[in-house]
């Protein structure tokens, strides 16, 4: 670990000019989580090459990453409550705190000054200064007159210095306004839906959407009109049929929007649901190879890629958006956990956990064009996320 980018580069070119060699952008960099090793690899996505491996980040099962607004620092949220700030250019851990006992992810504020972490234990959201990781605010997710605390999921940033998140046990959505960073104003929306398992915000930052596990449908909150409250989208999409057992929770990592519709995973059904974005009605559904986990759109919206829960987690399907048909079935290997597109979508990187590989596919040819060794890879996060709302 701690191999800095500059050292590698200097060694490679064997020139004296290290000061100039240090100059590089971060716009084509990314981080891949090695979930079982407590490490991340910093990747150059242009050359498809590792730049550094940073270790000592704790339990990174289900870890996720957000980026500082200058895209130099990655904030890594670990399962064990660890919040680690990684310097991509120096390839090293800048600072690490353990802020809770059990955590699930986080977000960075609109102005880049605050990092919020979503906690299971103790249930709630804690907010830190992005520069120093100093504690700024604590929002316990209490319900039932303060007698219980809920696990918090689906934490995202939203415009006007807000964080939005869902309370899994309480079935609520909360909006925390950090305009006054030391005194956040929290607005609560009870009865949002049963067991929200994840949430996301549309790319324009307007709508917060929570997926529901305990009932069919999604909970929708218009952040331009909080007084309108939470409403239900696609209620009864399961048509009262018995759900299939769910061997892995789906995710709503980013809102897969394309061609005026959005694509979301159905829970307990081998389907991707299509939502008409004009009125949030169902616009169709596509039968897929298993229960979808991630449903992600290529940045231009022409393709949607889907991976699956066990036992179908060796398969990836590609949906052609105009025809709404599956045009390619890939079998990269056991344990396909995550997919990340390069900023403009010419390639997608897939983590294949059980084979200790990350594969790179060209999205035009749908052929594998590269592979990298990574120990038990899970989440892949490119720095383009630094500029996206809700990521």
């Amino acid at each position, binding site marked *: 670990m701690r191999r800095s980018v500059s050292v590698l580069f200097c060694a490679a070119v064997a020139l004296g000019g290290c000061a100039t060699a240090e100059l590089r952008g971060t716009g084509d960099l990314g981080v891949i989580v090695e*979930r*079982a090793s407590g490490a991340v690899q910093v990747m150059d996505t242009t050359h498809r090459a590792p730049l550094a491996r940073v270790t000592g980040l704790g*339990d990174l*099962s*289900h870890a996720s990453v957000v980026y500082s607004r200058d895209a130099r620092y990655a904030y890594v949220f670990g*399962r*064990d409550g660890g919040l680690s700030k990684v310097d991509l250019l120096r390839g090293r851990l800048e600072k690490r705190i353990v802020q809770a*006992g*059990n955590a*699930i992810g986080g977000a960075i504020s609109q102005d880049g000054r605050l990092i919020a972490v979503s906690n*299971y*234990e103790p249930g709630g959201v804690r907010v830190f200064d992005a520069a120093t990781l100093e504690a700024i605010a604590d929002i316990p997710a209490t319900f039932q007159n303060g007698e219980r605390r809920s*696990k918090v*999921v689906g934490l995202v940033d939203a415009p006007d210095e807000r964080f939005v998140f869902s309370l*899994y046990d309480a079935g609520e959505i909360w909006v925390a306004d950090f305009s006054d960073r030391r005194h956040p104003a929290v607005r609560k929306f009870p009865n949002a839906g049963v*067991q929200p*398992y994840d949430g996301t915000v549309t790319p324009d930052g307007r709508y917060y959407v929570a997926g529901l*596990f305990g009932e069919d449908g999604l909970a929708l909150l218009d952040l331009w009109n909080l007084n309108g409250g939470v409403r239900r989208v696609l209620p009864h999409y399961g048509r009262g049929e018995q759900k299939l*057992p*769910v*061997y*892995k*929770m789906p995710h709503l990592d980013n809102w897969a929007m394309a061609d005026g519709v959005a694509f979301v995973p159905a829970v307990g059904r081998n389907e991707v649901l299509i939502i008409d974005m004009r009125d949030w009605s169902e616009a169709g559904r596509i039968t897929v190879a298993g229960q979808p986990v991630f449903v992600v759109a290529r940045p231009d919206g022409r393709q949607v890629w889907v991976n699956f829960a*066990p*036992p179908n987690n060796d398969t990836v399907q590609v949906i052609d958006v105009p025809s709404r048909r599956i045009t390619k079935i890939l079998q990269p290997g056991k*344990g396909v956990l995550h997919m990340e597109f390069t900023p403009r979508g010419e390639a997608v990187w897939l983590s294949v*956990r*059980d084979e200790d590989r990350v594969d790179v596919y060209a999205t035009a040819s749908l052929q594998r064009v590269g592979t990298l060794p990574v120990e038990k890879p899970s989440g892949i996060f490119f720095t383009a996320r630094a500029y996206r709302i809700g990521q």
Partner: protein
Amino acid sequence: MMKKGWVAGIATTMAVSCVAPAAQDPPSPARQHEIVRLLQQDCGSCHGLTLKGGLGPALLPQALAGKSPEFLRDTILNGRPGTPMAPWRPFLNDVEAAWLVDRLLQGKTDAP
């Protein structure tokens, strides 16, 4: 999916769980390895890679204390209606689930 490769006569030192049918052998070493992998990776996606809990509860011995092996085995095989806990019977048979419960109660969740 299900692998029932009973290898007769394996001289394993692993004690057969008290809840396993006495007539049956424990899972083969290779199968034990697969079950542990399932525990860490698939159970782990809700209960945590280190079983300290996630969306699902912790599965460490102190968290399971007071729950009977039969109840735990039934939960694994048949799931818990009203919660996200799914029935794992397509992936594990009775003996395998009993073996897994035994390991969980002992806190032995690494590969044997």
